[in-house]
């Protein structure tokens, strides 16, 4: 290794350079405190019918498909219609069994963990979400949450069905981040995978799931 | 109000019509214009080409000439006022002259581009002008983004009797002048100019106006080369025009003979 040959470690040298540079280029007036005058809380109350409606709009604009369930008791029936025609679905270890008990679908629980080729052979994945952001149409998956599981299960299957409880819906990005634990892997999902790499035109469906269905559980439309 | 005129080196030597028009407008509105005769140049060309050290004496000279000349100073040029307001103190500080930097900041706070002076300081939008032509307005980059003059020039133009204002497509895109850029990167500059001219022609205007003689020299130089039939006229000249006055000429590329001193504002 290069480092072993040097009299001084790269770490010490880079840090010494940066310390010298930090002082040489220090702003004469000092660094002012960071102004945090932006909105910490969005316009719509977390968990409200209005914020859920806004989420439906923003998620739909990414060409994800949104379904509504009036309450937890309606989730199985909605899922049955969402997954109609789907042969197999993987679910995280702690997904409520009541969601899948009556489904006419082969349900594979990721416990013990499925291999990547096994995941590649399944049609869909069904999870919950930790937080959803209405301003941006974003769902956040936190790895290791019982109803969200490992990152790989929401990545390899081509169809992701995500159940979002109204209580998890916030208006703004700052509200969402305040609810999340940054020490576990997080995946922010805004619509199906997409690319704008060809003439800046957005095309949905590349390497991640090409189909994203979102089931919103909570108050009826405002 | 007593107002000191910053003629700008380019305006003084090449485009005196815009300056005469500025004097005419302000005097018509009842103000006193003074011309400090020791003035030379704000130093913008040196600053923007990177000769910051050479610009320092120019900044010092400008501040000395104008500090006590009048309450406020005006230049019919967005880019020169932009240099005074956003670069003079920087040049002074970089040269280690904090006193000059503070004096430059004081002067900068009292130095206005023409549309700013008229609308913000003097509180007028109708300056009593008459200009019966189809006009489009190019918001020059430094007026737009260094000074943030916003719609002040448009409000002044809308109040001109007889003037038909037409929209310029992609108005906020640079014309490609950029001072020495037009020479150092002449080909890119020309490509930008081509699009600006296309938009001016698309607008259907007979006259393209702006608050900077330099940008007008660039756009007008291209339009003249094409024999396009569109002329460039400084905003000040339009605002100075009246029913009984001499009509504003193409300030840059007039095809009339110039050797015999046929001026607009004798």
């Amino acid at each position: 290794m290069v480092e072993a040959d040097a009299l001084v470690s790269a770490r010490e040298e880079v840090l010494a350079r940066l310390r010298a540079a930090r002082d040489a280029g220090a702003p004469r007036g000092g660094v002012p405190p960071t102004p945090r005058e932006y909105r910490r809380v969005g316009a719509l109350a977390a968990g409200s019918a209005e914020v859920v409606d806004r989420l439906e709009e923003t998620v739909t604009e990414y060409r994800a498909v949104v379904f509504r369930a009036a309450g937890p008791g309606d989730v199985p029936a909605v899922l049955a219609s969402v997954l109609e025609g789907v042969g197999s679905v993987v679910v995280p270890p702690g997904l409520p069994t009541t969601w899948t008990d009556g489904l006419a679908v082969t349900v594979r629980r990721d416990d013990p963990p499925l291999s990547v080729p096994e995941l590649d052979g399944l049609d869909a994945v069904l999870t919950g979400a930790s937080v959803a952001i209405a301003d941006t149409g974003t769902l956040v998956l936190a790895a290791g949450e019982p109803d969200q599981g490992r990152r790989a299960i929401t990545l390899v299957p081509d169809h992701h069905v995500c159940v979002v409880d109204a209580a998890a819906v916030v208006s703004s990005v700052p509200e969402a981040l305040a609810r999340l634990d940054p020490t576990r892997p997080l995946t922010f999902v805004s619509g199906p995978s997409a690319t704008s790499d060809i003439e800046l035109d957005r095309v949905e469906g590349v390497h991640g799931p090409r189909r994203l269905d979102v089931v919103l559980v909570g108050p009826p439309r405002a | 109000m007593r107002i000191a005129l910053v003629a700008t080196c380019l305006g003084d030597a090449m485009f005196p019509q815009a300056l005469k028009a500025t004097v005419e407008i302000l005097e018509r509105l009842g103000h006193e214009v003074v011309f400090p005769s020791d003035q030379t140049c704000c130093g913008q060309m040196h600053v923007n080409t990177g000769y910051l050290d050479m610009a320092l004496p120019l900044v010092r000279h400008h501040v000395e000439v104008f500090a006590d000349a009048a309450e406020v100073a005006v230049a019919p040029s967005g880019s020169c006022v932009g240099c005074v307001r956003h670069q003079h103190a920087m040049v002074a500080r970089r040269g280690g002259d904090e006193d000059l930097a503070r004096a430059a900041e004081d002067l900068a706070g009292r130095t206005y581009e023409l549309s700013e002076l008229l609308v913000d300081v003097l509180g007028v939008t109708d300056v009593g002008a008459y200009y019966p032509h189809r006009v489009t307005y190019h918001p020059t980059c430094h007026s737009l983004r260094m000074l943030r003059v916003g719609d002040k020039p448009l409000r002044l133009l809308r109040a001109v009797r007889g003037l038909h204002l037409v929209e310029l497509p992609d108005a906020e895109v640079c014309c490609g002048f950029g001072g020495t850029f037009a020479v150092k990167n002449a080909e890119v500059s020309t490509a930008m100019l081509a699009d600006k001219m296309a938009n001016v022609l698309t607008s259907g205007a007979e006259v393209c106006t702006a608050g900077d003689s330099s940008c007008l020299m660039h756009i007008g130089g291209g339009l003249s080369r094409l024999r396009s039939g569109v002329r460039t006229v400084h905003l000040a000249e339009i605002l100075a025009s009246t029913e009984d006055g001499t009509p504003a000429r193409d300030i840059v590329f007039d095809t009339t003979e110039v050797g015999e001193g046929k001026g607009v504002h004798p």
Partner: protein
Amino acid sequence: MSSTDLGMPTTAPDGVGFLRGSEPFPAAAHRALADTQLRRNLGHATRTIRAKRAGVVAEVPDWEELRRAGEAIKADTMARLPELLEQLEASVTARGGVVHWARDATEANAIVAGLVRDTGADEVVKVKSIATQEIGLNEALAEQGITATETDLAELIVQLSDDRPSHFLVPAIHRNRSEIRDIFLRAMPGVDPDLTDDPRRLAMAARAHLRRKFLSARVAISGANFAAADTGTISVVESEGNGRMCLTLPDTLITVMGVEKVVPRWSDMEVFLQLLPRSSTGERMNPYTSTWSGVTPGDGPQTFHLVLLDNGRSNVLASEDGRSALHCIRCSACLNVCPVYERTGGHAYGSVYPGPIGAVLSPQLTGISGPDDPNASLPYASSLCGACFDACPVRIDIPNLLVQQRAASIAAHRTPTAQDLAMRTVAAAMVSPGRFRAAERVLGLGRFAGRSGRIRFLPYPGSQWTSARDAPAPPAETFRQWWKRTRS
């Protein structure tokens, strides 16, 4: 490197990586301007993205407050960069990651190649990373017998056509759909010969081409958009899911990150996750953002290496004016609004950092060796129109940096150039009212040159002007003369 150099801010070394082109900007721009296909592709793409960005920025009522917060967080970061990096190192290490430090491109390439070799793999998948393009990592890995596959669609297009990236967000922005189809037909093994230029079909071809590689890859290499010092949380912001594939499925993840990408707090992400997507792809949020901290048992790569790269950044940090170039979050908004970039594309800048921000960052990373250094020409590749500042989500005053870097270019002149001498002469005249008036009188002689108000031809350097524009003849009387004649 001798011990006396220890601790001195240092520029990036020559001969490795892609921070400097081979010719000055005007020469490279000359060719780009003549490429009508390139001009059309760039015009279409930048116009599209400008409109999208404007729409999603306009709907954020606190956009200016977010910009000011982003600017301040970055300034604060730079003011305590070494401390934050040590904190980041401790956070990542505590969570099972291994942190490496690289003085420059050569050292970073050697570290990464060694780490890949240690796994026994001879293939890696890569997430788009400008830092690894900067250091020429793919080329260095190839020398070691390691094949690196780019997985971002645009990077794949660039790699398959043996091309160079020309944009931060869309490295193949200079290619249109039919060119991309031709590249795929020519260079993508097993591609459907009936492939059309429908973007959806092209994206599907890339999916099929890369899927087997993703599912079997053992080692991935990524960059980083942000790294929070307090929690050790790294973020990668992307669209296609290729990033998620690389960050999730392999056993080993190696992340190469410029030292300036650290941010003090995880909570600062609430600012950048609003600023970046809207400025970059012109969306409210990009499809996927992945964040991770060290290693998570049972989920994702079980070996994680973070390589912290200097490669000239200490030299940028040492300049009070210049260091704000390190605030850049690589959104590419300044490229998309720049009238120069729109007409020349990114290749004309030579460096992997094109456009307005590249014009002020590249010369600072490499230093400027003299008037013939191609990077000395970059700060002049701007009309100083200021559109870049308005678009910048962290309020980098690029026009001012351009002026400062022009001064740096001139300071590198060991002997005065013709331009230096001319500027000195003009400055001397302009500081003296007497000499200024005399100079004006000389200029006034020009009115005898012709009888019309326009000049069709001037000698060099005026010929650069009159190549496409008429020049005005000087007036019969200067303003000063008129004032004196009529007012005194």
